[in-house]
Protein backbone atom coordinates (compact mmCIF):
# COMPACT_ATOMS: atom_id res chain seq x y z
CA UNK A 1 0.00 0.00 0.00
CA UNK A 2 2.97 2.31 0.58
CA UNK A 3 3.80 1.71 -3.08
CA UNK A 4 0.43 3.28 -4.00
CA UNK A 5 1.25 6.40 -1.96
CA UNK A 6 4.80 6.58 -3.32
CA UNK A 7 3.52 6.22 -6.91
CA UNK A 8 0.84 8.84 -6.22
CA UNK A 9 3.46 11.34 -4.96
CA UNK A 10 6.12 10.57 -7.57
CA UNK A 11 3.80 10.57 -10.61
CA UNK A 12 2.00 13.65 -9.24
CA UNK A 13 5.34 15.49 -9.09
CA UNK A 14 6.07 14.37 -12.66
CA UNK A 15 2.69 15.90 -13.61
CA UNK A 16 3.66 19.21 -11.95
CA UNK A 17 7.00 19.25 -13.79
CA UNK A 18 5.24 18.44 -17.11
CA UNK A 19 2.69 21.24 -16.53
CA UNK A 20 5.58 23.61 -15.79
CA UNK A 21 7.34 22.61 -19.03
CA UNK A 22 4.11 23.33 -20.98
CA UNK A 23 3.75 26.75 -19.36
CA UNK A 24 7.42 27.63 -19.79
CA UNK A 25 7.35 26.39 -23.41
CA UNK A 26 4.37 28.59 -24.25
CA UNK A 27 5.99 31.61 -22.58
CA UNK A 28 9.08 31.37 -24.76
CA UNK A 29 9.42 33.60 -27.80
CA UNK A 30 10.12 30.58 -29.96
CA UNK A 31 7.67 27.78 -29.18
CA UNK A 32 9.09 24.25 -29.54
CA UNK A 33 5.70 22.76 -30.36
CA UNK A 34 6.75 19.11 -30.27
CA UNK A 35 8.27 19.45 -26.79
CA UNK A 36 5.23 21.34 -25.48
CA UNK A 37 2.78 18.80 -26.96
CA UNK A 38 4.76 15.87 -25.50
CA UNK A 39 4.88 17.54 -22.06
CA UNK A 40 1.13 18.26 -22.24
CA UNK A 41 0.44 14.60 -23.00
CA UNK A 42 2.66 13.45 -20.11
CA UNK A 43 0.95 15.90 -17.74
CA UNK A 44 -2.44 14.41 -18.69
CA UNK A 45 -1.14 10.85 -18.32
CA UNK A 46 0.53 11.64 -14.97
CA UNK A 47 -2.65 13.18 -13.53
CA UNK A 48 -4.64 10.13 -14.66
CA UNK A 49 -2.20 7.72 -12.97
CA UNK A 50 -1.96 9.83 -9.81
CA UNK A 51 -5.78 9.96 -9.70
CA UNK A 52 -6.02 6.15 -9.83
CA UNK A 53 -3.22 5.53 -7.30
CA UNK A 54 -4.49 8.29 -4.99
CA UNK A 55 -8.00 6.80 -5.18
CA UNK A 56 -6.66 3.33 -4.38
CA UNK A 57 -4.70 4.68 -1.39
CA UNK A 58 -7.75 6.61 -0.15
CA UNK A 59 -10.04 3.56 -0.35
CA UNK A 60 -7.63 1.11 1.29
CA UNK A 61 -5.60 3.15 3.77
CA UNK A 62 -6.55 6.80 4.13
CA UNK A 63 -10.33 6.40 4.48
CA UNK A 64 -10.45 3.46 6.94
CA UNK A 65 -7.22 4.16 8.95
CA UNK A 66 -5.74 7.68 8.56
CA UNK A 67 -8.93 9.77 8.33
CA UNK A 68 -10.34 8.61 11.72
CA UNK A 69 -6.92 9.31 13.30
CA UNK A 70 -6.82 12.84 11.88
CA UNK A 71 -10.42 13.56 12.91
CA UNK A 72 -9.66 12.49 16.50
CA UNK A 73 -6.27 14.26 16.60
CA UNK A 74 -5.13 17.85 17.11
CA UNK A 75 -5.67 18.94 13.50
CA UNK A 76 -9.10 17.72 12.29
CA UNK A 77 -9.20 20.66 9.84
CA UNK A 78 -6.41 18.93 7.90
CA UNK A 79 -9.04 16.48 6.69
CA UNK A 80 -12.22 18.57 6.80
CA UNK A 81 -10.70 21.46 4.89
CA UNK A 82 -7.46 20.47 3.14
CA UNK A 83 -8.27 16.88 2.11
CA UNK A 84 -11.83 17.77 1.08
CA UNK A 85 -10.55 20.71 -1.01
CA UNK A 86 -7.70 18.61 -2.45
CA UNK A 87 -10.11 15.87 -3.51
CA UNK A 88 -12.39 18.30 -5.30
CA UNK A 89 -9.97 20.66 -7.01
CA UNK A 90 -7.79 17.75 -8.12
CA UNK A 91 -10.63 16.61 -10.39
CA UNK A 92 -10.03 19.64 -12.59
CA UNK A 93 -6.46 18.55 -13.36
CA UNK A 94 -7.01 15.54 -15.65
CA UNK A 95 -9.73 17.48 -17.50
CA UNK A 96 -7.78 20.74 -17.89
CA UNK A 97 -4.60 18.89 -18.91
CA UNK A 98 -6.60 16.88 -21.47
CA UNK A 99 -8.09 20.10 -22.89
CA UNK A 100 -4.60 21.66 -23.09
CA UNK A 101 -3.19 18.63 -24.91
CA UNK A 102 -6.20 18.50 -27.26
CA UNK A 103 -5.94 22.24 -27.97
CA UNK A 104 -2.22 21.91 -28.71
CA UNK A 105 -2.54 18.97 -31.09
CA UNK A 106 -5.54 20.44 -32.91
CA UNK A 107 -4.23 24.00 -33.23
CA UNK A 108 -0.73 22.87 -34.26
CA UNK A 109 1.23 25.69 -36.00
CA UNK A 110 -1.66 28.16 -35.46
CA UNK A 111 -0.54 28.55 -31.89
CA UNK A 112 2.71 30.16 -33.06
CA UNK A 113 0.91 32.72 -35.24
CA UNK A 114 -2.23 33.30 -33.17
CA UNK A 115 -1.32 35.24 -30.01
CA UNK A 116 -4.78 35.19 -28.44
CA UNK A 117 -5.01 31.39 -28.87
CA UNK A 118 -1.55 31.02 -27.34
CA UNK A 119 -2.47 33.28 -24.41
CA UNK A 120 -5.67 31.29 -23.77
CA UNK A 121 -3.83 27.95 -23.68
CA UNK A 122 -1.13 29.58 -21.55
CA UNK A 123 -3.77 30.67 -19.02
CA UNK A 124 -5.12 27.12 -18.85
CA UNK A 125 -1.57 25.81 -18.37
CA UNK A 126 -0.97 28.37 -15.59
CA UNK A 127 -4.23 27.29 -13.93
CA UNK A 128 -3.33 23.59 -14.06
CA UNK A 129 0.17 24.36 -12.70
CA UNK A 130 -1.26 26.45 -9.84
CA UNK A 131 -3.83 23.76 -8.95
CA UNK A 132 -1.21 21.00 -9.05
CA UNK A 133 1.14 22.94 -6.72
CA UNK A 134 -1.73 23.69 -4.30
CA UNK A 135 -2.82 20.04 -4.29
CA UNK A 136 0.77 18.91 -3.56
CA UNK A 137 1.04 21.35 -0.62
CA UNK A 138 -2.35 20.23 0.72
CA UNK A 139 -1.00 16.67 0.58
CA UNK A 140 1.91 17.68 2.84
CA UNK A 141 -0.52 19.36 5.29
CA UNK A 142 -2.73 16.25 5.44
CA UNK A 143 0.27 13.89 5.79
CA UNK A 144 1.55 15.86 8.78
CA UNK A 145 -1.76 15.81 10.67
CA UNK A 146 -1.97 12.21 11.94
Amino acid at each position, binding site marked *: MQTLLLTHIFIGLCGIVASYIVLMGLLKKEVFLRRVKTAAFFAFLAYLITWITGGGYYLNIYGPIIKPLINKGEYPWAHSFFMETKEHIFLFLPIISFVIWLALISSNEHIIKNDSLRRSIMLLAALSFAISVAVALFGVVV*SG*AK
Partner: protein
Amino acid sequence: MDIHTFLIVTHIIGAVLGVGGTTFAEIFYLKALKDGVIDPMESDWLRTVSAVLRVGTVIILFSGFALVFWNVINGNSEYLYNTRLWAKLSITIIIVVNALLLHARAIPLWLGFSLSFTSWYAALILGIWSGLNASFVQIMLYYVGFVIIMGFVLDFIKKIYLKS
Protein backbone atom coordinates in the same frame (compact mmCIF):
# COMPACT_ATOMS: atom_id res chain seq x y z
CA MET B 1 24.53 4.63 3.08
CA ASP B 2 20.89 4.32 4.23
CA ILE B 3 17.95 5.73 2.26
CA HIS B 4 17.53 8.76 4.52
CA THR B 5 21.20 9.78 4.19
CA PHE B 6 21.02 9.23 0.43
CA LEU B 7 17.96 11.49 0.19
CA ILE B 8 19.60 14.20 2.32
CA VAL B 9 22.79 14.07 0.22
CA THR B 10 20.73 14.26 -3.00
CA HIS B 11 18.73 17.17 -1.60
CA ILE B 12 21.93 19.04 -0.71
CA ILE B 13 23.38 18.35 -4.18
CA GLY B 14 20.23 19.90 -5.71
CA ALA B 15 20.58 22.97 -3.50
CA VAL B 16 24.31 23.27 -4.28
CA LEU B 17 23.59 23.11 -8.03
CA GLY B 18 20.99 25.84 -7.57
CA VAL B 19 23.26 28.06 -5.48
CA GLY B 20 26.19 27.54 -7.88
CA GLY B 21 23.93 28.07 -10.89
CA THR B 22 22.42 31.31 -9.62
CA THR B 23 25.87 32.65 -8.61
CA PHE B 24 27.36 31.92 -12.02
CA ALA B 25 24.24 33.23 -13.77
CA GLU B 26 24.85 36.56 -12.04
CA ILE B 27 28.60 36.55 -12.85
CA PHE B 28 28.11 35.61 -16.52
CA TYR B 29 25.30 38.14 -16.90
CA LEU B 30 27.54 40.90 -15.51
CA LYS B 31 30.41 39.90 -17.77
CA ALA B 32 28.05 39.80 -20.75
CA LEU B 33 26.77 43.30 -19.96
CA LYS B 34 30.30 44.76 -19.83
CA ASP B 35 30.54 45.33 -23.59
CA GLY B 36 26.78 45.91 -23.93
CA VAL B 37 26.28 42.91 -26.23
CA ILE B 38 25.49 39.30 -25.34
CA ASP B 39 27.51 37.38 -27.95
CA PRO B 40 26.74 33.74 -28.92
CA MET B 41 29.34 32.31 -26.51
CA GLU B 42 27.98 34.31 -23.56
CA SER B 43 24.46 33.35 -24.54
CA ASP B 44 25.55 29.68 -24.56
CA TRP B 45 27.05 30.04 -21.04
CA LEU B 46 23.83 31.59 -19.77
CA ARG B 47 21.79 28.77 -21.34
CA THR B 48 24.07 26.18 -19.71
CA VAL B 49 23.76 27.82 -16.30
CA SER B 50 20.00 28.00 -16.77
CA ALA B 51 19.97 24.22 -17.47
CA VAL B 52 21.99 23.59 -14.28
CA LEU B 53 19.42 25.66 -12.33
CA ARG B 54 16.58 23.59 -13.80
CA VAL B 55 18.33 20.33 -12.88
CA GLY B 56 18.93 21.64 -9.33
CA THR B 57 15.26 22.59 -9.00
CA VAL B 58 14.05 19.17 -10.16
CA ILE B 59 16.48 17.39 -7.80
CA ILE B 60 15.40 19.39 -4.72
CA LEU B 61 11.74 18.94 -5.68
CA PHE B 62 11.89 15.14 -5.98
CA SER B 63 14.33 14.53 -3.11
CA GLY B 64 12.32 16.94 -0.92
CA PHE B 65 9.06 15.09 -1.49
CA ALA B 66 10.88 11.76 -1.07
CA LEU B 67 12.03 13.02 2.36
CA VAL B 68 8.42 13.98 3.15
CA PHE B 69 7.32 10.43 2.18
CA TRP B 70 10.18 8.89 4.21
CA ASN B 71 9.14 10.87 7.30
CA VAL B 72 5.46 9.90 6.89
CA ILE B 73 6.13 6.15 6.58
CA ASN B 74 8.56 6.28 9.53
CA GLY B 75 6.04 7.93 11.83
CA ASN B 76 7.71 11.38 11.89
CA SER B 77 4.58 13.17 10.67
CA GLU B 78 5.15 16.09 13.07
CA TYR B 79 8.18 16.99 10.93
CA LEU B 80 5.73 18.11 8.23
CA TYR B 81 4.49 20.95 10.45
CA ASN B 82 8.03 22.27 10.92
CA THR B 83 8.24 26.00 10.11
CA ARG B 84 11.61 25.54 8.39
CA LEU B 85 10.08 23.00 5.99
CA TRP B 86 7.23 25.36 5.10
CA ALA B 87 9.62 28.25 4.60
CA LYS B 88 11.69 26.05 2.25
CA LEU B 89 8.54 24.96 0.37
CA SER B 90 7.42 28.59 0.00
CA ILE B 91 10.86 29.67 -1.20
CA THR B 92 10.96 26.80 -3.72
CA ILE B 93 7.62 27.97 -5.11
CA ILE B 94 9.02 31.52 -5.33
CA ILE B 95 12.07 30.18 -7.26
CA VAL B 96 9.80 28.39 -9.76
CA VAL B 97 7.33 31.28 -10.21
CA ASN B 98 10.21 33.78 -10.47
CA ALA B 99 11.70 31.74 -13.34
CA LEU B 100 8.32 31.90 -15.12
CA LEU B 101 8.03 35.66 -14.55
CA LEU B 102 11.60 36.25 -15.80
CA HIS B 103 10.80 34.25 -18.93
CA ALA B 104 7.62 36.23 -19.50
CA ARG B 105 9.56 39.46 -18.81
CA ALA B 106 6.84 40.25 -16.29
CA ILE B 107 9.25 41.22 -13.49
CA PRO B 108 12.05 43.82 -13.38
CA LEU B 109 15.43 42.11 -13.94
CA TRP B 110 16.98 43.47 -10.72
CA LEU B 111 14.12 41.99 -8.66
CA GLY B 112 14.13 38.70 -10.58
CA PHE B 113 17.89 38.21 -10.10
CA SER B 114 17.71 39.26 -6.46
CA LEU B 115 14.83 36.84 -5.83
CA SER B 116 16.65 33.97 -7.53
CA PHE B 117 19.96 34.70 -5.75
CA THR B 118 18.48 35.17 -2.27
CA SER B 119 16.01 32.27 -2.62
CA TRP B 120 18.64 29.67 -3.52
CA TYR B 121 20.96 30.77 -0.73
CA ALA B 122 18.03 30.91 1.72
CA ALA B 123 16.96 27.37 0.75
CA LEU B 124 20.51 26.10 1.33
CA ILE B 125 20.90 27.93 4.66
CA LEU B 126 17.48 26.77 5.91
CA GLY B 127 18.36 23.21 4.91
CA ILE B 128 21.61 23.25 6.89
CA TRP B 129 20.46 25.30 9.91
CA SER B 130 18.61 22.51 11.72
CA GLY B 131 18.72 24.30 15.11
CA LEU B 132 16.91 27.40 13.84
CA ASN B 133 14.09 28.30 16.19
CA ALA B 134 11.92 30.85 14.37
CA SER B 135 8.33 31.10 13.24
CA PHE B 136 7.32 30.91 9.57
CA VAL B 137 6.49 34.64 9.54
CA GLN B 138 9.86 35.56 11.08
CA ILE B 139 11.77 33.47 8.52
CA MET B 140 9.80 34.95 5.62
CA LEU B 141 10.22 38.53 6.91
CA TYR B 142 14.01 38.05 7.09
CA TYR B 143 13.85 36.54 3.62
CA VAL B 144 11.95 39.54 2.18
CA GLY B 145 14.45 41.86 3.88
CA PHE B 146 17.38 40.01 2.31
CA VAL B 147 15.71 40.08 -1.14
CA ILE B 148 15.55 43.89 -0.94
CA ILE B 149 19.10 44.20 0.42
CA MET B 150 20.46 41.82 -2.27
CA GLY B 151 18.64 43.87 -4.93
CA PHE B 152 20.63 46.95 -3.85
CA VAL B 153 23.90 45.00 -3.41
CA LEU B 154 23.68 43.38 -6.85
CA ASP B 155 22.80 46.72 -8.43
CA PHE B 156 25.77 48.35 -6.65
CA ILE B 157 28.16 45.58 -7.81
CA LYS B 158 26.81 45.95 -11.36
CA LYS B 159 27.41 49.73 -11.40
CA ILE B 160 30.94 49.38 -9.96
CA TYR B 161 31.83 46.56 -12.39
CA LEU B 162 30.47 48.33 -15.46
CA LYS B 163 32.39 51.53 -14.56
CA SER B 164 35.69 49.68 -14.04
